[in-house]
């Protein structure tokens, strides 16, 4: 066996390790590029989820100013953690509407009273029709909608404190 053949495993190992080090240094980008980004919000008219708050229709999302649309549910545990962050977003100027999925008015009211209520309008989507039309597979999920009713950004999963600057930037961009 020649020296080169005997050293081949070492060389191969070096290549593999280089590739793995590269991956560790450049983790995969987990953001999902929504297929709905750039598309108008599907048309819908939803009844109010709680008696003391206005209902939500797709036309409410096309009134000139960008808005954040949050898909949530009172039975969803990550939504509880997210509520705090949504309050923070509202304090920093974001206009937020919501769709409550498969929920009951009293549960939603309890959720808002306990964890905070940053929402201007909340629609009740009792059979997930609008959720499916939005291409949302779970709760919570959020969409940035520009003033013309076009979705510009989709965030899957709870918005975490670290995501606040990115969401505000997306809202700014959608103006």
């Amino acid at each position, binding site marked *: 066996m020649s020296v080169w053949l005997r050293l081949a495993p*070492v060389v191969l*190992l070096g290549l593999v*390790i280089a590739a*793995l*080090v590269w991956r560790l240094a450049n983790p995969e980008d987990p953001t999902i590029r929504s297929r709905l980004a750039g598309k108008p919000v599907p048309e819908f008219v939803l009844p109010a989820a709680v008696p003391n708050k206005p209902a939500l229709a797709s036309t409410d999302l096309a009134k000139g100013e960008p808005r954040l649309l949050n898909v949530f549910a009172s039975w969803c*545990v990550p939504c509880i953690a997210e509520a705090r962050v949504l309050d923070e977003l509202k304090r920093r100027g974001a206009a937020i509407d919501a769709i409550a999925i498969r929920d009951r008015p009293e549960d939603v009211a309890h959720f808002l009273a306990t964890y905070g209520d940053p929402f201007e309008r909340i629609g009740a989507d009792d059979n997930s029709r609008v959720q499916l039309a939005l291409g949302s597979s779970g709760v919570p999920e959020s969409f940035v909608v520009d003033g013309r009713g076009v979705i510009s950004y989709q965030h899957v999963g709870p918005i975490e404190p670290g995501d606040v600057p990115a969401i505000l930037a997306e809202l700014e961009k959608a103006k």
Partner: protein
Amino acid sequence: MIAETGLAALWLAAALSLLQLLLSVGELRGAIDAGRPIRSIAIIQGALTLIAMAMLLLLFVRTDLSVALVAANSHSAKPFIYKLAGAWGNHEGSMLLWVTVLALAGAVLALATRRLSHRTLVVALGAQAALALGFYAFLLLASNPFARLDPAPLEGRGLNPLLQDPGLAFHPPTLYLGYVGLSVAFSLAVGALLTGDVDRALGRAMRPWVLGAWVLLTLGITAGSYWAYYELGWGGWWFWDPVENASLMPWLAATALLHSVNVLAARGALRAWTMMLAMIAFSMSMVGTFLVRSGILTSVHSFAVDPQRGTFILALLGLYVGAAFVLFALRTRKLKEGPPFELVSRESALVVNNLLLTVILGIVFFGTLYPLFVEALSGDKLSVGPPYFNTVAGPLALLLAALVAVGPLLAWRKERRQVFKPLAVPALIAASALVISLVAAPQIGWLPRLGLVVAAWLAPASLLPLVVRNPWRTPLATWGMAVAHLGVAVAIAGMASDAAFTKEKLAAVRPGETLSVGPWLVRFHSLAPAVGPNWTAIEAELRASRGAGVRVLKPQTRYFTDPVTETNEAAIATMPGGQLYTVIGQPDGEGRWQLRLWWKPFVALIWLGGVLIAVGGLLALIGRAVRARARARPSRGTNSWRRERYG
């Protein structure tokens, strides 16, 4: 106190492994005779890690939430068995299990090895200590399983519900035992290369470890495949997922090593190659652990991604494997050539076996890492899926399986007899299978058809080594080989049948409606809620019939609360002719539910084959151990009383 005891045991074990390494270096340099102390140290080190592992298990059983690991992975309401499984169903615990098995393997190596050159054993124990030392450092410095939480939380976070399954509770430990069993082969190879004693005695010392590790890997992969089949609810049994590949690669290397180490033990040939394979087999185990633990490749196995931990394991991997490969490059020139053999001989057949297995290993390895290379060099994202693996590795695997029929019939060194005559019967059976499949099922693909033919050829041929002599006087190891090779045929038959004959139906139906799949009529009878210890579920009742009799199946969608997750529990009816596999999916909001039905003829043969392969390996292991004992007995002078008793 329990956690502190465990941590102290772990520190002591780490210190002993350092001492073990130093002693072995001293022995290698000829400065000291470390034979006796190093054996004792290896045994005590193994015992200490066992104490640490026992402490961790105890903490999980008692749900001591002041320990961070318990709080993050357990829950007081969890069933007992999953509390135990929770101890290794997480990063820190699984690394502790890994190092425990590594140290115990070292202890058994020190206790049970006879008839190996004294120096090689001492140096191999040093290599084993060096391996363990790196993982102790990893545990103690970067992932302490005994870290406390202050204040302690009121309730733990639970275990991923997908993992709450009896099969899966024991899947990781089985694979780990297999992975780490290969570490001994690695250490023995390193020891033998350093001392230069690559000989038949080394082959015989290495063989039981390779066999044992290989049996466990086979069982682990078979169990993992069945788990994925019934728990994920996708109806498939192998997805070429990176983490699945991570367990397949060590198995392929161990299968090749298992065969080449036989050549080394029996004939003293294939020396350099067997050493290389021993190193590759454990390297693949480390690569597997790295891929799983770092979460580096996207996979259904959604473990936590932690680049820091990944870096640590990668550094260990580079250090150990790199050092071993360099050692190989420097030392192999000095190895003597083994005895020669002719073109038609058992040795040649095993060389072909090794070549094919190595090429398949290369294909899987390349396919698993290819997306990474492409993205690193060009930035393009792509994934390598089943079509690549099936079409590239499939035919080679079938070629290998076809040759398995021939190899065991050949004699060592040279074959002059007419050994191919008995193969006429299997050839006839295979030809009939081909004709029948062409007539009865002309529409199936060429790969499944080839699979059916190869299975029909190999199944009878695998038994020939028993038939050509008196089967009752055949050594147990030969029985083991025949059973394992039969298992290969059985598994291939299952895979081919599943690929060729599966019928699938997906539809949204209301209770009361009926679907047909294959020969079955399945009525969606009713829907009801169900409750378990820590989940609630929607359960469908399906009534399936084909002609006479009704079978009731109850697939579920389970909702877990801690953490919030939804899983599909498939309901599977197993019959001699196949499996009816049913999954209930989402409702559409108008009273209809998604039902997914499969009729899979003979699919269970896949796992039956896997179990047969493992049983074959076990028989061979027992057979070899009994023989080694029988051979060792007369040489010992002390047991003369026994000779008197037996006359």
